[in-house]
């Protein structure tokens, strides 16, 4: 029980990862797959940032009055800032691809797109 409460951040990140993976694998709608990819990325951000936590420490903003305090590790947060922006760009590009697919095939369900494409190549 102490194990679950002490590492609740890591367990939450892994549960979110498995939920996102289930969403990508199961639903045939393309936009739900993109939402599943976003959930997986969020879980990895949570896992990475909570590695740098130190118990009983303050946020990494130095107070010029009294020095020598215990601060949280600032390095994983700085790395994740870049990762969040990359995730935004990938989601935007994937959504614009879905708009083009809808213009070409008329539907955004993956089963029907595969059916239309297999009928086209048989002739």
């Amino acid at each position: 029980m102490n194990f679950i409460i002490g590492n609740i951040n890591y367990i939450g990140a892994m549960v979110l990862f498995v939920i996102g993976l289930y969403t990508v694998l199961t639903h045939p709608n393309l936009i739900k797959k993109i939402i599943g990819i976003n959930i997986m990325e969020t879980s990895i951000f949570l896992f990475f940032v909570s590695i740098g936590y130190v118990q009983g420490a303050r946020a990494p903003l130095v107070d010029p009055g009294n020095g020598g305090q215990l601060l949280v590790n600032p390095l994983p947060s700085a790395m994740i800032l870049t990762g969040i922006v990359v995730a935004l760009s990938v989601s935007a590009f994937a959504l614009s691809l879905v708009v083009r697919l809808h213009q070409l095939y008329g539907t955004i369900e993956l089963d029907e797109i595969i059916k239309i494409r297999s009928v086209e190549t048989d002739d």
Partner: protein
Amino acid sequence: MDDLFVRVITKMILPFIQLYGLYVIIHGHLSPGGAFSGGAIYASSLVLYTLAYGLEKGQKRLSHNTSAIFESGGILFFIFFGILGIVLGHSFLTNRQAGFSMGNLGQVLSGGLIPVVTFVLGIKVMSTVVTLFHNMLEEER
């Protein structure tokens, strides 16, 4: 959306959102925030304006030419400050060793290169998010 209530409330609350976004960008080296979150807050005000008043008026606020200038100018400004470090005799993108003025600790105008770079990156992020939104709406015509 042709709702009168949404339009009146948007017109009243828009300057406060923009002021808060600019505050987070400018105080990036003193309090939590920085370029990326401040740029996103600033961009959400323009997205709210487009949602309430329609695409025509929204594109007059941030046209294609203006967003092109903001985006390209942001990266070129960054590289210009880096090459300024090379011209003054040190490596690329140095701050204190290249002789930029440091100022007093804890004030807004301190830290040499940091407030300028933060401001330019914040404007760039704002222009990116608003251009994304306008491109996805423009396609319906």
